[in-house]
């Protein structure tokens, strides 16, 4: 059970959270102007990073807030959590072999 630092409530066990998938994928402002490929990219394409990955969590059984976490998917170490609207410190870092 991961220990996740909610930016509002502090460190809490994973049981209180819901994972919200990859972070920083903004919903297009005008979906109808997108091609099918562009829309599919928004809906489905994910970086699936092996390395530092930014993802969303919701403190569902806590304060209810969504926030972001930068986690290394090769170790599950969470480097940092930050609020919605804030940017990550580093971009994704895929562990290029």
């Amino acid at each position, binding site marked *: *059970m991961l220990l996740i630092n909610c930016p*509002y*409530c*502090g460190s*809490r*066990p994973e*049981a*209180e959270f819901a994972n919200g998938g990859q972070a920083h994928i903004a919903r297009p402002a005008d979906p109808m102007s997108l091609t099918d490929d562009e829309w599919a990219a928004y809906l489905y394409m994910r970086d699936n990073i092996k390395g530092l990955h930014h993802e969303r969590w919701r403190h569902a*059984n*806590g*304060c*209810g*807030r969504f926030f972001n976490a930068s986690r290394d998917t090769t170790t599950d170490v969470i480097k940092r959590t930050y609020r919605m609207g804030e940017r990550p410190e580093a971009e994704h870092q895929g562990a290029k072999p």
Partner: protein
Amino acid sequence: MLSPAIMRSNALSPMQSSSTTAASTTTLSILPDAAKLVFRGKTEAIEAAGAHFGVKPSLEACRFAAVGGRSVHWLGPDEWLFQAVNEDPIEVFGGMSAALQAQACSLVDVSHRSDGIAVAGPTAALVLNHGCPLDLSLKAFPVGMCTRTVLGKASLLLSRSEEQVFHVDVWRSFAPYVWQFLDEARNLS
């Protein structure tokens, strides 16, 4: 016609009689009914709400403030629970909404959404820790702290009103589960 007070049922009433008479030093008891309102909104509005209610809401995360039978629990950065023990929800709601008319906020009466359990005794934290993954030591979870969390497979609002007394506020349909879970835990601990 019956009066509302007589008509009102608590999801936990049947549990009380079915509970074991444990050798445990931890007791479970049903908390009295209360008017409960969920306030969500902007910071200016919460201050106005507190001023009307007579309890200054905590802006610090995971803390509650209480004056007499009235309390305000921080639930989230834009969400507080106002409680007034043994008061009429309609009156409390009416008064509050009037006071907040000009404010950017939401006020919802949830007086019947949940029931309350007091878990008390020297091993109350241990009993709760049978299903709650939080550190409930006094250092990590002091008197005056509150938070939504989980107990087993239920979600609830947990607060510490005294060193050895926790209050659990849980949605009605989950309340029997939580009661039974805690009852078994205090027996087996």
